[in-house]
């Protein structure tokens, strides 16, 4: 496993992958290390989690703006 620091770009991908599969402990440690020092990526982690929660809650809603119905 590399010991180089992760970039925010790499972290975004790792956070996404982490929502779909188990992370190796070493990779997890590198990720958490980055999270300790990077507020932006902490926000992204929280936002990916919220996205998941919100999408699961989507139910058919009564269209009031008509945007979707008129699409080809």
């Amino acid at each position, binding site marked *: 496993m590399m010991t180089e620091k992760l*970039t925010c770009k790499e972290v975004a991908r790792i956070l*996404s992958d982490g929502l779909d599969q188990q992370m190796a402990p070493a990779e997890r440690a590198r990720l958490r290390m980055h999270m300790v020092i990077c507020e932006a990526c902490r926000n992204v982690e929280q936002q990916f989690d919220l*996205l998941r929660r919100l999408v699961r809650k989507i139910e058919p809603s009564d269209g009031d703006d008509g945007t979707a119905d008129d699409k080809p």
Partner: protein
Amino acid sequence: MSPLEQELSALYKPLLRFAQLQLRDKAAAEDAVSATMLAILEKPDAFQGASSLRTYATGILKHKLVDHIRRCSREVAIEPLDEQSLDDAIESLFREDGHWQDKPAAWVEPEQALERAQMMRVLEGCLEKLPARVARVFMMREWLEKETQEVCEELGITANNCHVMLFRARMLLRSCLDSNWFHRSTP
């Protein structure tokens, strides 16, 4: 019309919109919604009113959508994906050294029901804007709540491709929701 039929009639359009979000194919979406309504009308007693009819119908519709995807995933003519421009869009969020171009700021979830409903509409709009192939993988994973492995198998794509698609979807949705809701510039 019976009260159940009246309720179903009012649900038709919402369900159709919902099905289209996943299938991106109007005729297929109509089929799935018709099959859902037929299933409810065939066994009206199965709906006990424990949940709302909307929730009940949504549950059945999800199964019909999965059925459809299972049957057609390999043959359906879905618009090809311009991977290059998609990756460029994501790439442009970062500086060359891998740092964020604009640092993502925290999101504050609305507490009021009305605001939450508005936020969900914005999210739906963002989902509708996703490229069809990206949306299909994402919706199967997150909305139909299937394991990633199942999604790959049913769509006949590699695990790596699956992860790439999910990453693209999350990045695009994050940006879309950020600029259209959480940090929208116009009040």
